[in-house]
């Protein structure tokens, strides 16, 4: 079947190639020699007990670790054929968007929240253009219908789940290629969580999504690839189905069966 081969080819193309990535905070080692390929148009989940370095690794991709004073990253991270450290952080972060654990909309209007990225990167030619970008981002963030009549009310007035979808819409308004999500549902109720998971499913049509989660059910529901971290090591990285049904490492097995965590 021609279709599946094409599909497979796209899936097999790595978006980010990490080799022997090591991160230290001061003299404390947080991540040890991690190597992994993040695939395009795929949802990759990072799981593992808390403090094992999932967020730290995620922050390497968009150089957010640069903003932490005593954090040092070594090893190789290739994005778009170039070392991430050689990319300009400003353009890099426009192409690799991030959604944080706690919804953090700007204390401005819903419209201005979404329009901020396109504005600073000069993505729109005029007001009508920007209106279009904002609407498209809010539609893809599955929030448009709920907020279209109150675009100029403040974003902090929305419910937690709406705020997080606003943050997702804000991140995708700059048309990134990769979307990093650090436990995006940990502050949300089950209904809002389901909405976000549905959204992630939509987003993988066009983006490569990397999601950190402490919920194995969530990883199983949304991701195609799963990486299991333990004490700063990448223990296992495989298709999600394989990780959950036939883990190759005993540590992975004990984690998914709930013996460590």
């Amino acid at each position, binding site marked *: 079947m021609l279709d599946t081969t094409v599909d497979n080819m796209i899936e097999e193309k790595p978006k980010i190639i990490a080799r022997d990535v090591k991160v230290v905070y001061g003299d404390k080692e947080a991540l040890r020699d991690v190597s992994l390929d993040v695939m395009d148009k795929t949802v990759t989940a990072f799981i593992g007990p808390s403090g094992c370095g999932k967020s730290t690794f995620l922050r390497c991709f968009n150089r*957010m670790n640069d*903003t932490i004073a005593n954090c040092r990253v070594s090893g190789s991270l290739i994005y778009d054929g170039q070392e991430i450290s050689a990319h300009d952080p*400003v353009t890099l972060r426009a192409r690799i968007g991030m959604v944080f654990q*706690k919804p953090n909309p700007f204390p401005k209007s819903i419209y201005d929240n979404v329009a901020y990225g396109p504005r600073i990167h000069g993505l729109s030619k005029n007001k009508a253009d920007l209106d279009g970008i904002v609407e498209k981002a809010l539609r893809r963030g599955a929030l448009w219908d709920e907020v279209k009549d109150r675009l100029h009310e403040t974003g902090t007035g929305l419910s937690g789940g709406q705020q997080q979808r606003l943050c997702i819409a804000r991140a995708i308004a700059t048309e990134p290629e990769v979307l990093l999500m650090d436990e995006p549902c940990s502050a949300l109720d089950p209904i809002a969580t389901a909405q976000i998971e549905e959204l992630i499913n939509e987003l993988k049509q066009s983006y490569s999504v990397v999601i950190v989660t402490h919920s194995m059910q969530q990883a199983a529901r949304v991701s195609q690839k799963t990486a299991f971290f333990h004490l700063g090591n990448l223990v296992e990285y495989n298709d999600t189905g394989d990780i959950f049904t036939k883990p190759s490492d005993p540590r992975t097995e004990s984690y998914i069966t709930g013996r460590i965590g």
Partner: protein
Amino acid sequence: MSLKARQSKEKRFQFAGLAAISIGLLCLVMLFASVLSAGLPAFQQTFIKLTFNLPADKLDKSGNRNPQEMKKVSTIGYTKVITEQLKLNLTKAGLEFDQLSKKELKNMISKEAPAQVRYAVLEDPSLLDREFEMVLLANGRIDGYYKGRVTKKSAELDVMVSPKQLELADQMKRAGILETRFNGRFFYWPDASDLRPEAAGLGVALLGSFYMVLIVLVLAVPLAVCTAIFLEEFAPKNRFTDLIEINISNLAAVPSIVFGILGLSLFINFMDLPQSAPIVGGLCLTLMTLPTVIIAARASIKAVPPSIKAAALGLGASKVQAVFHHVLPSAAPGILTGTIIGLAQALGETAPLLLIGMVAFVREYPSLSPEGIFEPATALPVQLYNWTVRGDPAFVERASGAIIVLLVFMITMNLLAIVLRKRFERRW
């Protein structure tokens, strides 16, 4: 401890707290009562309304109404004419004044009046030889008589006023020539010499204070905000920045007079700026206000959740963009509140201004152009101090009036700060 003992301990504590608050409130009430009762009369003044028909042969000897030549007639010449006019007015009203000496009659009217009339005539020479009405200040002692400061009994011992003058004043009041009413000039007239408290006003002081607050606003706020942003967001955390931080807190606790000494040696002796000028006062007050505003600005910048900055950085904003687009606007209400409190502090500060010569007697308004900040002026609190040390009780009354004006400014500014804080308060 038994439950009962615990409860009674709690009761005692509550009672102590209530007592403390009551004492505080009582003191506040007493303060306001004394300031208001002493100061409110300053907003009233006793005036004498006269119908003038000024003789041109005395005030314009050349007769061609040329102000240049009319200037030759001094205020002494005008004093004589005014006294004559007063007599005519009294006669017309059917009042007796023979029992008063010439000097007593002359002194019914303020020593400021001749200058006032002379100025009006030189402005408009056509006033001569025709009837017009003019309202003149009454002598300060007569004014004091209607405010309870002077009595007929005290007048017997007073060289400045006699019971006969007060008797005439009463008659003039009944005839409608003399009245005590609101005196707007208190706010815009300049200071006056010791002999004419009735003419003294806050004009120069208000203008000087306004200039200085403006200078503080223009200099201290940008400096303080930039310092705060740099220290909070950009400066590396090392010994040197720690030292700067500690010193800023220390500066906030330095007695204000020290800033006066610094201003005297730096701005006047070294930089050769003029004495008594708002520019020097403004610079001293800027130095004094800076630490306060820096500390307030840093606190409000620190209070902005880091997640906001992270969100901006995550979208590809540069550090400067993140700070100026998001952190600063969120911190702005707090910075504004700190600024207003700093300005109120600067407005009420006296000590450093005494040292740089702003205590001088200034009767000329500084100009309204920007050069005005280099011309001599006084300031509200200094003017107030100045009046309290003069002998005449009329000046003490005016000082209390000035306190009310100062307090009104202070309360307004602090209320503004509170309103802004309430209005922009954010819950994250």
